[in-house]
């Protein structure tokens, strides 16, 4: 069962430029371009929640659905491959599915600003019959997990099936591999991850991270765990920028 992860190229019969229609307007794209990006570049409004341009797409919130040739697809994952594509960003089915998604978001995260603003945009109000005892404001979009993966720590994960699924550390304990970078908290659309960021320490996931001072300017800038990562920069970003700028003009600086 040991298979190396080599990506097999798709058998594209055509490559390069293709064109098609989005809401009746002609657009062109390159084969393999993600529909969401193409649509947005051409000024079409497609709401998203679990999408982030800097992270892998997951397609789980279902907010970005569009109709392609009568099929509903999540535009954040859909690659345009055939010329003459026909995309609709609005239709009765899309309206119904968007309403369902936002209504369910309201039921799970009624206090979230992002969700409330979506509700306002699409003229929806929370349905009291769908109110739940467990409104924990987390929409399981997984951005926090993906950000942690991208940062290399993979300290947290989405755990469990169905509506019990939640973000947590292994064994339901404070995540031992967390480095205190706060990326998860900052990428969360509903701001549901609590954290403290002070001058000399950070706290998140019930863990405490004293900040280490920069050897050059003495300002606390990173946690010990962050500094312990392979290839971690041991001086703070400002000092690094200054060092790089000086290195450009002062050859002796490098020898110091």
């Amino acid at each position, binding site marked *: *069962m040991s*298979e190396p*992860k*080599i*990506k*097999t*190229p*798709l*058998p594209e019969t055509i490559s390069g430029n293709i064109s098609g229609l989005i809401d009746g307007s002609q657009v062109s794209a390159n084969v393999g371009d993600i529909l969401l990006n193409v649509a947005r570049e051409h000024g079409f409004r497609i709401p998203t929640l679990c999408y982030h341009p800097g992270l892998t797409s*997951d*397609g*789980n*919130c*279902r907010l970005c*659905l569009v109709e392609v040739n009568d099929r*509903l*697809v*999540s535009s954040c*994952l*859909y*690659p345009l491959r055939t010329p003459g594509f026909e995309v609709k960003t609005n239709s009765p*089915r899309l309206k*119904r*599915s*968007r*309403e*369902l*998604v936002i*209504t*369910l*978001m309201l*039921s*799970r995260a009624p206090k979230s600003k992002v969700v409330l603003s979506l509700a306002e945009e699409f003229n929806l109000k929370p*349905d009291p*019959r*769908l109110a*739940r005892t467990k409104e924990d404001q987390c*929409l*399981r979009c997984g951005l926090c997990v993906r950000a942690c993966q991208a940062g290399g720590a993979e300290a947290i994960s*989405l755990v*469990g*099936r*169905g*509506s*019990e*699924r939640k973000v947590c550390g292994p064994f339901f304990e404070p995540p031992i591999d967390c480095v205190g970078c706060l990326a998860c908290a900052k990428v969360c659309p509903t701001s549901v991850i609590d954290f403290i960021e002070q001058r000399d320490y950070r706290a998140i996931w019930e863990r405490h991270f004293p900040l280490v001072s920069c050897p050059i300017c003495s300002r606390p800038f990173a946690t010990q765990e962050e500094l312990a990562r392979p290839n971690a920069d041991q001086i703070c970003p400002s000092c690094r920028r200054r060092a790089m700028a000086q290195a450009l003009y002062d050859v002796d600086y490098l020898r110091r």
Partner: protein
Amino acid sequence: MRFSTPQDFNQYISSLPPSAARRLWVCGGPGCLAQGAEKLLLALRNEASKTNKDVSCQLLAVPTGCLGLCERGPMVACQPEGYVYEKVKIEDAQEIVVETLISGRPVSRLCQDPKDPTASNHPFYLPQKRLIMRRFGRINPDSFEDYLRTSGYEALLSALSIGPLEVFSRVENSGLRGRGGGGFPAGRKWRACKDAIGAPKYVLANGDEGDPGAFMNRSLMEGDPFSIIEGMTLGAYAVGASMGYIYVRHEYPLSVERLKLAIKTAENFGLLGDDILGTGFNFNLSVIEGGGAFVCGESTALMASIEGREGQPRVKYVRSVERGLWEKPTLLQNVESWANIPLIVQHGSEWFKQIGAPNNPGTKIFSLVGQVKRSGLAEMPLGSIIRTLVEDVGGGPQKGRTLKAVQTGGPSGGCLPTSALDLPLDFDSLPEAGTIMGSGGLIVMDNLSCMVDVARYFTLFLKNESCGKCLPCREGLEVAFNILDDLCCGRGQTGHSDLLVNLAQGIQDSALCGLGQSAANPVLSTIRYFREEYLEHEEGFCRAGRCQGLFLVKIDRDKCNGCGACQPVCPAGAITGREREPRTVKVEKCLGCGACLTACRFRAASTERKVAGV
């Protein structure tokens, strides 16, 4: 002994000695096992050894699919005479050995019809066409020789002489549609995989049968494992795959064991592995055990599971036949689809198209369960009318009850009312009516089944099995279930039914995978055909007498014959009346539990609404 050429193998098959002159098969399916089949087998073996004759008494531990009639187990069959015995007891062992095993005479009193000991006119079997199940009850599933004696591996030998392209053509032209539920044309999948670029290519068998009430795949994996292996070998040969996996549901340990044994046997004989029969064709096959997740029956989730990840589906904008397992071209079919392949390759596509219906060739194994007289496994040509299956094969509803609905396709399917009984069982007619054929589960419901409760049951199942990745399925099924629960527990409100329809349609449109997209079917189909029941539940009344506390019982004194079956089962002591006289229900004591309704065989007890204040 490893065969190094097809000729060697052929020679071996033709020179196989015939099996023992007479054999007794004891069905070892879960139904029969639960009724003591293993003890019966021991008893038969004991009796046989007492006679000191050279007899062969074998336990054919094939699950319910073996003889199919689980309701009448333990069952025993005899070869070559073909006698079929039902409800066999240990006390019958001696007579069976002496009369049947040694002398070849039937023990008629054990037959469904003493005048028809070979069950040639048995109502359960008559309408069936047992093609995929042809070896059930005739072979020991672990025996390679038995498989070979019943035309086993003939297809592979043919294939090796006609070449992979011809094998592929036969399957493509046969019109075979996937037996796992989707009914997708197999030929199209095979072509796409054959043409895909990438190596190695994989063939997968989906044995993750998770539909409650379905055990067709299980009976196949346990009753004729070699047929699946041969089918997959043919598939690998045709599309150019060199690796294969059979993914078996965790709850089927016997299937795992049987398949592993069969694979090992095939490997030992050189029919799996490298350089099969010296032709240079390599194909390595192994079994993978699931972890207990219904969603892993979905193809992308199944592949994720094999890769060591959570069984979460992914969107299919690039199909698995192009990029599947480990991003390689992967051909996934249900085990029953694979079992069809040797037949198609051996007999040709024209032969196959003559069975079944236009655009729906071949047969399908159905598991007929629920409130029907004869439940079990039945194999019917596609296009057979539902009524034939339910009334002829199944014998109709149990005594004192009337048919109300038929549920097809498992949790992804829907319920059909009795007016739909004349629909054909095929991949096209059922979706129009709001259900799907699915993997072949068919659940019969009678007047005591509450359709809102049925929707609640399936929605709960899907909610529990939801992988949790996408929002509509994860959150939507939970709120839908809460509302169904409200309806069944007396908290129904006006407008709940409409809300459910909205939710269901929204989930259907927006869910990421097939499980979510079809999760709406139980709700939508029951509301479509049984809306009055839903409206009644909004008002707090359950006409079926199933939802506790949502009804009262009254007894019709004209229909009640005083048998008294209802009285002792009432937990509240609410039934009064003297022996052999019609009974009465004291409504102020009635809890609305329905026990008396189940007990009554004469339809004298029925439900009525609770009056306010009672």
